[in-house]
């Protein structure tokens, strides 16, 4: 019963941690837009956490630049299990227009498996909500697998 309670709660309270891996800030702003009264993801229990230790879902934006690579990987590693990695926008998925730049060492899936990718440049907030909902579902699956 206790386990079920925890599982149910986990589905209702996914906390996000947002890493900017050299993004142009477009996706970052759209992510923050989710907290505005218009989209208000807090009603679904989402919350932007200040530190990876509190997070369930890691949202990565930006192609992984050479400078940010170590920090991104370190930070992702610091998120306690179970965790879901979400890429927001095209950059972390494929480096997008930054591909081939001397300073870009992405995409992210070279280093860690990506659970959910949200395409768009930048994605519409509704699409992000969709993506996060999918991430929550994966979170639930991961909990079950554990």
């Amino acid at each position, binding site marked *: 019963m206790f386990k079920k309670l925890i599982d149910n709660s986990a589905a209702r309270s996914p906390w996000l941690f947002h890493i900017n891996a050299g993004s142009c800030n477009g996706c970052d702003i759209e992510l923050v837009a989710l907290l505005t*009264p*218009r*989209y*208000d993801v807090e*009603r*679904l229990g989402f919350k932007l956490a200040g530190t990876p230790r509190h997070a369930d879902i890691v949202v990565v934006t930006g192609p992984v630049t050479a400078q940010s690579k170590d920090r991104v990987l370190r930070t992702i590693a610091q998120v306690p299990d179970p965790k879901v990695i979400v890429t927001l926008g*095209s950059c972390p*998925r*494929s*480096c*997008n*227009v930054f*591909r081939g730049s001397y300073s870009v060492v992405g995409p992210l899936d070279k280093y860690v498996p990506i*659970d*959910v*990718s*949200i*395409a*768009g*440049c930048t*994605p*519409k907030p*509704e*699409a992000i*909500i*969709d*993506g996060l*909902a*999918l991430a929550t579902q*994966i979170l639930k699956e991961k909990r079950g697998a554990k």
Partner: protein
Amino acid sequence: MLPFIKEAVTGLFSKPSTEAYPFKPVEAPAGYRGRIVFHADQCISCGMCERVCAGGAITTHSEETEEGTLVTRRFFLGSCTFCGHCAAFCVKHAIELSQDYHMVARTEEELVVSGSYLKKKPAKKAEAACAAPEESTVKPREDGLPVNDTSKCVYCTLCAKKCPAGALTVDRKAKTWVLDEDKCIACGTCHDVCPKKAIIM
């Protein structure tokens, strides 16, 4: 302080301005550039889309079959900036950016839009080509002005559009390619932009 308190209290008793999104679908506004829709049957394989794509999201894969070349055009949304250049440059309007924004995927494959079409071998033309193999070879003109190789030309009109002097007139329907030699400045733009390399200089 007081105006803020007033604002807060009125906010408390007014209707929230939140969209009920996941429970109630929301349409993207007109002009939104979302998921790419590829009408493969209209594609003339000019390859313009691929060339203008900034993110390198479009790839083409061709496969020779008995009936002709099976061309598969692949749009990887994970690398797309949704700038709409490909659609704008597509003369056949084979590419369209829809208003569908639900581009969420667990795997890479879910983010790929692709379409294939069969480019038939030009059977009749081949006979004609057999009849006069030598004539079809177009040689460059000596004065440096462009020449059109009609066997390669698909009459996409790009050369006419790009010509800085307005020396070219191309008619898709009539399949004509006319050069106004007086206006031509022999800049070579048409040669450079021709997707089929049909213009020889």
